[in-house]
């Protein structure tokens, strides 16, 4: 029984990380309707920012929140204005190629400036774990899970309760209609992109105590992020949270009962199944929303 519970707990904790890296992506998908293949690289950049802050000023990764969050927001805004905005009116293939190119560019710039060495941040709590009646819970993972829930909740409340949030939802639902109602599309897009990248910055903070970073680390996470986002429904970030958690648990169980090397196979199979039955994702907005990001 403890084993079963442990597998669930481990799965949910990993799922929290998956959800955290996917929230920003689904926001960008849903609002700007661009597939950002460079999303993983922002995780990498955020992580390096946390790392250098820690090395140069000794600031704890969690506390660097106050610097990393605004910087990443600005990085998102800058990316949008310089790279994305010029191709917004172009065919979606051009947009995809631009973000792929951006991805390579960022990876190689990081390789050039930071070299390929693995960097880790030493914290007092990296290996701290709680033991509750034979269930082991790692502290950094627990924090990542808690933050994932908090960020999702915060964004949910923001979108539901504020005027700006309403405007964003309007743009996501019907761009033309929103424009007709006087919403400044440009500002919404810039803002959404900035928030999306900012979420990646938060994710970077939470994963720093857990994983070493190197220029290609974004690639490790980005594939899962895409699966989570599509599974949860493009643009639906509560969907992303739930899909992330689900994926974590599925991985945990299939890794144990089937084989650790096959756990990705299992969730990709589920992914394919869901898409064949309900293409707009598990929690997607239903028929008609399958092609978010391509139109």
């Amino acid at each position, binding site marked *: 029984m403890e084993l079963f519970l442990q597998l669930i707990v481990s799965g949910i904790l990993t799922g929290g990380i998956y959800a955290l890296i996917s929230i920003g992506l689904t926001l960008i998908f849903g609002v700007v309707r661009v597939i950002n293949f460079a999303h993983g690289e922002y995780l990498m950049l955020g992580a390096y920012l946390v790392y250098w802050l820690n090395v140069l000023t000794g600031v704890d990764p969690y506390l660097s929140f106050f610097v990393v969050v605004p910087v990443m927001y600005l990085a998102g805004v800058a990316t949008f204005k310089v790279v994305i905005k010029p191709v917004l009116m172009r065919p979606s293939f051009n947009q995809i190629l631009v973000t792929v190119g951006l991805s390579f560019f960022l990876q190689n710039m990081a390789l050039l400036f930071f070299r*390929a060495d693995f960097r880790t941040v030493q914290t007092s709590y990296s*290996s701290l774990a709680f033991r509750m009646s034979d269930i082991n819970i790692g502290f950094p993972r627990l924090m990542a899970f808690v933050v994932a829930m908090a960020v999702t909740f915060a964004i949910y409340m923001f979108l539901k309760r504020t005027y700006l949030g309403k405007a964003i939802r309007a743009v996501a639902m019907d761009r033309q209609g929103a424009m007709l109602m006087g919403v400044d599309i440009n500002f919404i897009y810039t803002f959404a992109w900035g928030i999306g990248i900012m979420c990646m910055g938060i994710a970077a903070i939470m994963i720093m105590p*857990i994983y070493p970073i*190197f220029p290609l680390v974004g690639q490790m996470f980005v594939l899962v992020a895409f699966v989570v986002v599509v599974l949860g429904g493009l643009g639906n970030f509560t969907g992303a949270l739930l899909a992330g958690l689900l994926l974590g648990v599925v991985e945990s169980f299939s890794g144990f009962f089937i084989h*650790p090397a096959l756990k990705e196979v299992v969730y990709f199979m589920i992914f394919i199944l869901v898409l064949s039955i309900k293409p707009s994702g598990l929690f997607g907005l239903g028929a008609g929303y399958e092609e978010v990001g391509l139109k």
Partner: protein
Amino acid sequence: MKRFSFLLAVLLVVALLFSGCTDDAPAAVDEDGEVYEGDIVIGTLYPVSGPMALLGDESFRGAELARQKINEEGGILGRQVVFVSADAPDTAAATAEAERLISQEGMTVILGSYASPISMAASEVAERNQVVYYESGGIANPILERGFEWMFRYIMQASDLGIGGIQTVASYGPDALGKPVEEIKVAIVFEDGPYGSTVGKYAQEEAERQGMQVVAFESYSSESIDLSSLIERLKAADPDALSITSYINDAILFHQQAEELGFYVPLFIGNGGGHAMGDFAAAVGSTVDGVVNVDVAQYAINWDRAPGMEEFLERYEAAYGTAPRSGHSVLNYSGAMALFQGIELAGGVMTSEAIRDGIRAVDIPRYSMPNSFGAKFGPTGQNENSFAVAHQWQLVDGEYKQLAIFPEELAVVEAVFPIPAW
């Protein structure tokens, strides 16, 4: 605006064309690309940029220091040694650069390459062109299982790591655990690429040969974000000893999650890869204590059996200002020296045939090179005087270092088993 963007596009294309030009020709080559007559010219192929750059560059440093040493001592038969270097960050570049070294630069021998995939790709090109490929770092067994006639490997094989690890368990296990070898439960875990799979396979064969019980045989992806399900499976199997083969990322992840989930094993045997690196020790902190790394000889070995090691360390410090970052530099240093001897035995004739025959004639006994190997190449090109050394991470003057524990000739310290609880 259209005119401007057209011009910009043209400029970008031109810039792209020029970006292919590099200026890394060695100093001994003049503007026309002609090498001064009489120099011994060797091609080198290492990943000095890209994701494998850390250890690729470390490997190249070893070869370069060997080159400097031999040139200071008068060169080979009075002729200076010159490297024509190529950078191979991935397998596509490896193939392309090998082609370039052979067809454009006219290399008749190539020295490389740190990583097995790079080696596999580049040596394919060399073999096709009947050019000698001298491998110092790639250990995967399949490299020399292709029936090649022009390839040599200085380093031992992946199988030696797997076997060496299990032999370490067989030597120390009974005393540490208080039970005979046949009752020892061993778990074998490995990353699912060619490196891990080869080591894992031979570890399993050796464990069965020794009569141990293999209670787990698990592969995993080195790019996993989470290894908790693997660790739960291992906990369920309750092993006495673990043989694990990982790269640096997954080695750290496994160790941290094992600690988090309360998975302890009395004999923890890493097989090169991530467990060899200082970055691993730095990342996992005190839980590295007692971890064994079966690998090429590192630095804390019996220097009486590694003549030239001290000189190597002095040269490295003088040239690069730090201590070596891994055992790869002294490995490539020694490998290059063995190659130079082969060329000397070939009378300095720089045709592939002569070089090949020269390398085949090299006969250096074990414990004679700076990294403690010897050099004698068997029918497949494998150096039969290479071997795996087991080291254990122990606390020395407040710092964790790898100290040789096996074989006896190289051991500098007593092994500590069971390893400290974490």
